């Protein structure tokens, strides 16, 4: 892995939801230490784009150049198991990703006092913090985040922004879809509205039934 290749390079990407293109011609790249915020109205395809980049669904066309084993994805839901304690939840992901320490993650997201509580007893915001702390535990440089600040209060949002900033300073990257201001002044912003797919022409009747 050489340092001068771009870790994430998206070229002319088109993504589909339910068999129909929602975004097309999306191109951007992300270099080390940078963050990119994706914006756009509800339903414009932010989540679909992120899931495609994370490899959960195939792209309609275009190219995604992503370093192998670099990415950690966090979706709408936290994947927190209510029956396990905070520590057990994080320990599990640390084992899955083959990393060892969960202490930094606990401190950064202010979860130390809660670490022996079953996750089911946490509030929505605390659960969200636990879900985000998972990202630190993965040890992956590229965070792909889908609406990470849902149900976080102002203080927790600031805490999250701080964690992202620290991550970027350490050479990490973040790709964030959000509709609120994260307070990350250094992040580039990409508005997805111009990339919305036009409805295909109706004169032919092809394999996509349009």
């Amino acid at each position, binding site marked *: 892995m050489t340092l001068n290749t771009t870790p994430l390079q998206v070229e002319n990407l088109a993504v589909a939801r339910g*068999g129909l293109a929602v975004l097309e011609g999306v191109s951007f790249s992300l270099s080390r230490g940078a963050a990119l915020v994706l914006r756009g109205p509800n339903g414009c395809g932010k989540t679909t784009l992120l899931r495609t980049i994370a490899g959960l669904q195939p792209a309609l066309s275009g190219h995604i150049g992503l370093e192998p084993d670099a990415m950690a994805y966090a979706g709408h839901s936290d994947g927190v198991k209510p029956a396990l304690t905070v520590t057990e939840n994080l320990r599990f992901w640390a084992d899955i990703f083959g990393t060892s320490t969960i202490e930094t993650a606990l401190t950064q997201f202010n979860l130390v006092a809660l670490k022996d509580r079953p996750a089911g007893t946490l509030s929505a915001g605390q659960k969200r913090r636990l879900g985000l702390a998972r990202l630190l535990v993965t040890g992956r440089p590229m965070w792909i985040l889908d609406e990470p600040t849902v149900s976080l209060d102002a203080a927790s949002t600031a805490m999250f922004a701080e964690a992202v900033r620290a991550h970027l300073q350490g050479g990490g990257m973040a790709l964030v879809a959000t509709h609120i201001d994260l307070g990350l002044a250094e992040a580039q912003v990409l508005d997805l509205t111009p990339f919305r797919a036009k409805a295909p022409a109706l004169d032919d*009747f092809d*394999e996509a*039934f349009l």
Partner: protein
Amino acid sequence: MASIWSYANPKKFIDTTDRVLPVLSVLALAALVGGLVWGFFFTPDDYKQGSTVKIIYLHVPAALMAINAWMMMLVASVVWIIRRHHVSALAARAAAPVGAMMTVIALATGAIWGQPMWGTWWEWDPRLTSFLILFLFYLGYMALWSAIEDDDTAADLTGILCLVGSVFALLSRYAVNFWNQGLHQGASLSLDKEENVADVFYYPLLLCIAGFVLLFVALVFLRTQTEIRARRMRALLARERLND
């Protein structure tokens, strides 16, 4: 001649089958009426089975088509999984109810035949049991198609189910053989055996089989057309939503 894959274009498929369907339907009707009338009224009664043997003209072709329909679905599913032609997946979907109906016909005529011959409507004989299991597979396959909203997801899942189901259906066939030896007579037709049913019964039977095959093809063409149109309608509705 154009490659066979060019018919994977839904429009071309509909255009072509539109031209073929009338011919196919007439041929199917002619073969069925001809075969059944010949079989029912112009063949002698069997010396052992009497006139009940004549149900063979429905029973054997239906049983053949019940299996062949599943085979066709298997091939269509493989084509969909490998080449991603939507028409293929829709043809598999279209064939399933026809195949299930054929299975029901085979089971029902078998019961009607079995009653005078074996003195029972139903017997847990390997052949009968296998067909019952095949019917269950058809049911599951159709239920899965109708349960999933997204068309491509449904096509993928049912395709894989068809592959896995085929293996298990075959396994069940042998397991059932092991489990009970049965009293069903041997196959009525076979290519490798000299001994078939007598010629007087044989030719009308062949005609009936041809009729069932033609009927099956015609029904699958027709139902695939319907599926394509329904699919196009959903695609157009989705496109409308995109424009909002």
